[in-house]
């Protein structure tokens, strides 16, 4: 992985090709379940046997993390929560946490956003109000409290700049110029801006240059940030792409039931990850 090129976006064949680009040991910034998760690439990472990944939840993690943890791909998570939402606890995360086999750095949502925003600006840290007195501050290795230099006796918390190796998410569209459209999901732009490399799967290709379109441009992340894209129709399934398809709640409930046991989880992988490439 070279450091921060002004990317010339590469166009890859499929989700498996994207997964091959993400090295073992990488720190991957990931969005929450309602924000365009690249599930097809996550399944491809499991198929290629990815190892020692560090997952950064921006700001929380869900199904993708639970699958990667259960499949033994993950060494560490930093996140504000891991949850399957309405489907309940994330069973493989919970089991690994309770068995002590997973390193967990607990955070709180805006501290993760703030750490990434510091990186966006190229500054080493950024302050955030609140949080002081939470045990999170005691345990987090990168948070420091300072006195506000502009006022006396005003302690304030600093988030160290967070630099993920990889940003990974799904887009509704990519275009010929390597721009991707994610609509209102602003956290995806933040992850893309702050990461050394950015891999994006997409639903559909749009001919031309979306940045030239005044209506599409505000929902775009410009190709300068995008390392490579690949097509993955229904690539967020069983999660959703707002405006295209919704979250498959029945599948999530099915997963939550099966993944309660290690054996059930293996069954799930066999059926939905190893056997089937796309739904």
């Amino acid at each position, binding site marked *: 992985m070279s450091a921060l090129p002004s990317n010339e976006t590469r166009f890859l064949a499929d989700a498996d090709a994207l997964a091959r680009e993400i090295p073992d040991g990488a720190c991957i910034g990931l969005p929450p379940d309602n924000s365009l998760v690249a599930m097809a690439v996550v399944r491809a990472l499991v198929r290629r046997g990815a190892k020692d990944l560090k997952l950064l939840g921006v700001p929380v993690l869900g199904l993708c993390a639970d699958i990667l943890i259960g499949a033994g791909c993950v060494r560490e998570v930093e996140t504000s929560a891991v949850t399957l939402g309405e489907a309940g606890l994330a069973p493989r995360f919970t089991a690994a946490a309770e068995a002590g086999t997973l390193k967990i750095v607990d955070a709180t949502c805006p501290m993760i956003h703030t750490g990434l925003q510091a990186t966006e600006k190229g500054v080493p840290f950024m302050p955030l109000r609140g*949080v002081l007195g939470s*045990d999170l501050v005691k345990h987090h290795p990168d948070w420091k409290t300072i006195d506000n230099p502009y006022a006396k006796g005003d302690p304030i918390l600093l988030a160290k700049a967070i630099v993920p190796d990889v940003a990974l998410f799904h887009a509704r569209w990519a275009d010929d110029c390597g721009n991707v459209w994610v609509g209102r999901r602003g956290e995806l732009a933040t992850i893309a801006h702050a990461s050394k490399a950015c891999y994006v799967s997409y639903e559909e290709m749009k001919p031309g240059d979306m940045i030239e379109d005044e209506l599409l441009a505000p929902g775009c992340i410009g190709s300068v940030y995008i390392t490579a894209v690949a097509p993955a129709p229904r690539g967020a399934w069983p999660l959703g792409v707002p405006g295209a398809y919704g979250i498959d709640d029945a599948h999530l409930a099915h997963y939550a039931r099966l993944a309660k046991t290690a054996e059930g989880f293996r069954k799930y992988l066999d059926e939905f990850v190893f056997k089937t490439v796309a739904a």
Partner: protein
Amino acid sequence: MNFAKEELLAVTIARLIGDARHVAVGAASPIPATGAFLLKQKNPALRISLLQKRTGNPFTEGSRELFDLAGQGRVDVFFLGGAQIDGEANINLVQAEGKRFPGSFGSAYMYFAAKKTILFREEHSARVLVPKVEFISAPGWSPPGVERRGGPAALLTGKALFLWQKDRRRFLLQSVHPGSSAEDVRANTGFDYDAPAVVPQTNAPSVEELRLLRSPVAQVILENYPGFGKRVWEGK
């Protein structure tokens, strides 16, 4: 008139929200959402930001916008729960008795930034309401000198309503719900709290409140919390 426990809790939430202008409702909180939408029936100007809203979500800048809004003081009321809640209003969303929970979400920030936080946990037991939480996700109070806009206002459970007394750093038992009693609440609460000699019963929903809950409010809730809505209002 008969009513469901969830309806009583939602009506109580609506009263606690009071004259707020902007309520934000976080992850998996159907009862707080129901209370907020009930209040909106009476006060159409009330702004409700449902973080979980699947389509037409109120935020256009992604999930950090809520925190930026709250940081500026644009969120009047927020809701938090806890795997454990203690008598100093500290909440724990991380771990308890060897069990791992999802995590702290935005609590450590929102508890400071929202003008008023209503603590809500339906389970009322000595296991949840403990003398001291095992892990402080977000503290109930802050020492002098620590900038803090807001904090706890009340704790609502399936058995009772407590008000937070900021100057005493203790809860005050305000009322007990039908089916419970002051003795039952004392026996099932792991922390100490103040209580009047005679504890009143939580006000039951009015006929008008129940009518609103079962028609216009139920419709909105069914869209966003289908499992909850079907269980409460369709008997499924």
